[in-house]
C-alpha cells in the first residue's frame, strides 16, 4: 500500500461553525493522508465532524485553517468555479437520500454530470449507455425516480457519481435508507469500484459496514481519535 501514490493530504485542518454567539469546533487539527485506491470508513457518533470532513474532502466546504492537497494540488486556495471544476472531474458523491432529480429519468440523472461538464451529446450517450448496462438498469433507464425501488435509486446515484471517472468516491451513509439485502448489494457495488482502483471513503454509523473497509477512522468531537492505518504502522514498527 505504501507504494501507491498519495491522493489526499490534509494538514492541520480546522473548521469552526458560528452558531449564534457560540462557536462550534467541527474539525480540530485534522491530519490525514489517503493513498490512491484506499477503502476507508469514517465512523463516529453524530456531531463528531465526519460529515463536515466529507464535505471538506468533496470541496463543498472550506477549512478555516490548514491545507488540503488533492492529487498533489493545493485545492484550498482555488476559487469557487475552479473548485466546481475539480468536483466535476475528480469527485463523486453518493448520498443517503440518493438526491435524484425527480422529473428526470434514470438515464437523464446519470447523464447530469456529463451535461454539466459540457460533454458532447454523442459521447454522452455512449457513456450513459455503458453505465446503464454496467449497473443493470437497462430496463429501468426511462423510468423516473419515483418508479424505482430504493436499491435501483441508489444504483442510479452510484452510476451518476462514477460517469465522470472520479479519483475519489465519497459516500455518506450509502445504505442508510436501504434494507439489509439491498444495502449489501450496494456495498458490493461500491467495493467493486474500489477494486478497480477508485478511492472510496464511506461515512457510516453502521459498525458492520465500517468493519468491511480496509482502514477505519474514528472521530470524536472533531478530532481523529483512532486510525487503523496507524495501528499497522505501530505493529510494523
Amino acid at each position, binding site marked *: 500500500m505504501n507504494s501507491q501514490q498519495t491522493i489526499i493530504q490534509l494538514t492541520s485542518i480546522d473548521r469552526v461553525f458560528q452558531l449564534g454567539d457560540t462557536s462550534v469546533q467541527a474539525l480540530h487539527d485534522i491530519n490525514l493522508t489517503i493513498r490512491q485506491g484506499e477503502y476507508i470508513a469514517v465512523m463516529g457518533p453524530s456531531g463528531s465532524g465526519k460529515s463536515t470532513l466529507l464535505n471538506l474532502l468533496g470541496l463543498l466546504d472550506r477549512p478555516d485553517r490548514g491545507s488540503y492537497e488533492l492529487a498533489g494540488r493545493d485545492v484550498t486556495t482555488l476559487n*469557487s468555479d475552479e473548485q*466546481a471544476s475539480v*468536483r466535476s472531474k475528480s469527485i463523486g*458523491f453518493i448520498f443517503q437520500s440518493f*438526491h435524484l432529480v425527480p422529473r*428526470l429519468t434514470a438515464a437523464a440523472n446519470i447523464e*447530469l454530470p456529463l451535461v*454539466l461538464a459540457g460533454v458532447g451529446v454523442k459521447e454522452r450517450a455512449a457513456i450513459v449507455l455503458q453505465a446503464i448496462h454496467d449497473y443493470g438498469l437497462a430496463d429501468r433507464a426511462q423510468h423516473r425516480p419515483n418508479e424505482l425501488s430504493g436499491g435501483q435509486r441508489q444504483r442510479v446515484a452510484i452510476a451518476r457519481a462514477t460517469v465522470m471517472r472520479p479519483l475519489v468516491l465519497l459516500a455518506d451513509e450509502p445504505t442508510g435508507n436501504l434494507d439489509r439485502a439491498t444495502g449489501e448489494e450496494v456495498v458490493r457495488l461500491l467495493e467493486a469500484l474500489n477494486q478497480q482502483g477508485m478511492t472510496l471513503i464511506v461515512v457510516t454509523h453502521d459498525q458492520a459496514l465500517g468493519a468491511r473497509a480496509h482502514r477505519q477512522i474514528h472521530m470524536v468531537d472533531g478530532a481523529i481519535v483512532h486510525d487503523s492505518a496507524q495501528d499497522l504502522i505501530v505493529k510494523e514498527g
Partner: protein
Amino acid sequence: MRISDTLRFSSYAAFGNSLRTFLLILAISIGVAAVVVLTALGDGARRYVVDEFSSMGTNLVIVLPGRSETRGFNPANLVTSTPRDLTVEDASSLLKLAGVKLVSPILIATTEINAAGKLRESMLLGTNADYKKLRNLKLSLGRFLSDTETSLAAPEVVLGAQVRKDVFGSANPIGKTVRVGNRKLRVVGVLAEGGRGMGMSSDELLIIPIEMAQAMLNTNTLFRILIETESRSQIEAVKARVLKAIIQRHDGEEDVTVIAQDAVLQTFDKILNVLTLGVAGIAAISLFVAGILVMNVMLVSVTQRTAEIGLLKALGATAKSVQQLFMVEALLLSTLGGLLGLCFGYLGAGLLRYIYPAFPAYPPLWAVVAGLGTALVSGLLFGVMPARRAARLDAIEALSKR
C-alpha cells in the same frame, strides 16, 4: 454547460409543474394582450380621426367667418369687432392669389327634398364645380355641378347615394325634376356611396350651386371657404396671403379665421398619440405585475428545488451555470407568455374590427414590440434575484434538507 443542454434542462424544469406554468403564462399573456388591444384601440381612434380629416382633401386651407380670439379678452373688441359677411365675391377673389389652386365657397343648411310623391329631410350643401376636385368626390351616375362662372346658377342638384335610394329607389334619377325647399331642380348626378368628411356622410347630401343656395336661404354669408393650395409647402404662405386679402376686402378688419387642415390634423394626431401612449402605460402596469409574479414563482421554485441546486453544485455545476439555469427558466416562461399574449391581443383586435368594421383597430408596431419587450425584460429582471439566490445557495445546507 452547453446552451442546448441549459435550454433543455430549464424547459423541463419550467414545464414540469404544469399548473404553476399555466397560471404564470396566463398572467403574462394577459398583460401583453392588454397592451396590444388597448393600443389597437387608441391607435385605431387616431387613424379614424386622421382618415376623417384626410378625406376632406389634401393641402386644405379653411376660412371661417368671425375671429377666434387667441390673445385673451380685449375690451376694444367689444366696440370694434363687427364681423362682415364672408361672401362669394371674397371666395372668387382668393382664386387670383399665388399658390391657390382651387377655391370652393360653402353654405350648409337643412332642407327637404320632395320628388315622386316622397318627402325627405336632408342636408343641403351649396358650393361650386371645383368642390368635386377639392374633396375628391366620386360620382356613381351623371355629372357634378356645372361651372358657375359660365352658367350662372343653373337649377341643378347632385344627390347623395342614400337620398337617391330613398327617393328614387333603383330608378334612374338623371334628368328628373325634384323639389328642394321652394325650388324645382333637375338631377344631374348621384354621388358614389361611402364618401365622408366634415363630420357627415356625403350619402345624405344634396349639392346645389352656391348662388342657388344663397337665394333659397336668403343670405349673403358663407359657412366656409375651402382653398386647396398648389403644394404642401405653400400652405403657410397661402394662409398669410388669404388673411391679408380678406382683411383688405373687409376694410382692414380682421374678422375671419384662417386655419390649415394640416395643423388641425397634427393636433388631433398628437392628442390621440398621447392617449394611445397613456393606455399603453396602463396596460404595461399589468405586465409589471406579471413580472413580479414571475419573481414570486421563481423564488418558490428555488425554495422547492433547494436540494436539487445543492446536488447540481456537488456534481460540479458552477454558480454561474446554476444562475443561468434559473434565468433561462424565467425567460422561457415569459417568452411563452409574451407570444401567447400577442396571439390573444391580435385576436382581440381582430374581434374589435369585426364588430366595428369602420374602426381601424390595428395595434401599432411599436406597441407590439414594446409589449413583448417589456414581458421579456421583466422576466429577465425579475428572474435575476431568484437565480442569484439559487447560485449563492450553500450546497451543504441545500443537500442536508429533505
